[in-house]
């Protein structure tokens, strides 16, 4: 019999994970504001020596193939773009969650980080290649954080994967999300949303975390972004980067077409671009000594 989870239990789990650093929190808030400029990003990173060092390491990793070393933060940040700066900051302080072994999902080590990174890249590509009026960097950040709730509920799901898959195959339950709810009384989008509240993440990102499998239920003003990450998540799974046993066991909401204009050629081109970018970024993070 699996242990049931409620809000209080999830909050206790959340209280045991480190908070986001001040600089990561500031970066998230600043980059969500449509009127921010690059200098405000530079100012935040400069206050954090560890983050500064990591940014310089990533930009000078062989994966980017720069001929001349970049030694100033201004140049590093304008070269990498704000999404990667936010990515490095979040990856660093939430590494305990991203790198947790998700036995509940029978996932390989590091697969949550890989899935999230791939979803981030795919969500951004969906935005840029469909020409949607969404900030592509915000889609990247939201994609990176969308599944963070899996790290909070995985332990409670231990030993349930085979049963869940059998139930989905027999159409006794709709998908992995509803199975999580049935098994332990809580799903990863709700768990992630609790973390978003505890970390005081911007409302847009909290909304993506909560509704990335049910985008139609998101607030209208955030819905197109939530759909973009919904597609990014599916594209990551199609590319072989799901989390674990749950991979591809979620439902596509085809109403995305109300918000994003995507034909099969564009999707093919997105899949290609995602694969290239993912290989490069995964390598650059690894070379920079990241534990991911």
């Amino acid at each position, binding site marked *: 019999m699996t242990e049931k989870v409620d809000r209080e239990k999830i909050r206790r789990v959340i209280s045991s994970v480190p908070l986001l650093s001040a600089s990561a929190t500031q970066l998230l808030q600043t980059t969500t504001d449509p009127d921010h400029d690059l200098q405000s990003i530079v100012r935040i990173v400069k206050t954090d020596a560890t983050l500064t060092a990591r940014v310089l390491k990533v930009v000078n990793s062989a994966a980017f193939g720069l001929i001349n070393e970049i030694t100033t933060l201004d140049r590093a940040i304008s070269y990498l773009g704000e999404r990667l700066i936010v990515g490095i900051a979040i990856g660093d302080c939430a590494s305990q969650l991203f790198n947790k072994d998700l036995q509940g999902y*029978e996932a390989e080590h590091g697969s949550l980080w890989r899935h999230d990174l791939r979803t981030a890249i795919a969500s951004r590509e969906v935005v840029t290649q469909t020409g949607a009026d969404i900030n592509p960097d915000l889609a990247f950040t939201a994609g990176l954080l969308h599944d963070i709730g899996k790290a909070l509920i995985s332990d409670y799901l231990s030993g349930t994967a085979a049963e869940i898959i059998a139930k989905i195959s027999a159409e006794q339950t709709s998908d992995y999300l509803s199975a999580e709810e049935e098994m332990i009384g809580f799903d990863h989008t709700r768990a992630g949303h609790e973390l978003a509240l505890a970390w005081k993440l911007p409302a847009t990102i909290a909304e993506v975390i909560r509704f990335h499998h049910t985008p139609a239920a998101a607030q209208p003003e955030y819905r197109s972004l939530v759909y973009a990450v919904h597609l990014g998540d599916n594209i990551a799974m*199609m*590319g072989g980067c799901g989390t674990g046993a749950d*991979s*591809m066991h979620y*439902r596509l909401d085809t109403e995305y077409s109300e918000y994003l204009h*995507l034909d099969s050629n564009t999707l093919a081109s997105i899949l*290609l671009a995602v694969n290239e970018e993912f290989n490069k970024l995964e390598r650059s993070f690894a070379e920079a000594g990241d534990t991911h």
Partner: protein
Amino acid sequence: MGQIILGVGDYGASNRPGEEVKTFALGSCVSVILLDPKTRTVGMVHVALPEAAINKAKSLQKPGYFADTGIPALLNEMAKFGCQPKGKGMVVKLCGGANVMDTNDTFQIGKRNALSIKKVLWKYGMGAVAEDLGGNFSRTVTVSVDTGEILLSSPGRPNWKL
């Protein structure tokens, strides 16, 4: 024991005893496996998309990405192992090509990959003797050079053979 690990868009072959040819987590991608009984060579290509027309430049740089350039590239590679360059006498097996649940036409890349691969194979007069295609789960595929046996795995499911 040696392993040849193929990423997305990679192809490779081996005739070395004890070796395995492997690819991880096929989602909508399809792995085309060619077994040549005569030379005891195993070949595999990890195809991501149906047609190279979507990006000609990429198909030159990495032909294995696409069904229509990946299969000829794999046959060329296997010819280096003494296999017949048009695939004569080879045994073909296919796996992968999963789709997300409630997919629409646009997202049926897995199905389109499989169809395109079969079309290309027909041109060579080849057809798959076994396939494990579709569904909504990812597959990791390992082929043994010694036995030609294909082992599939997917988290949360018992391993199975093709």
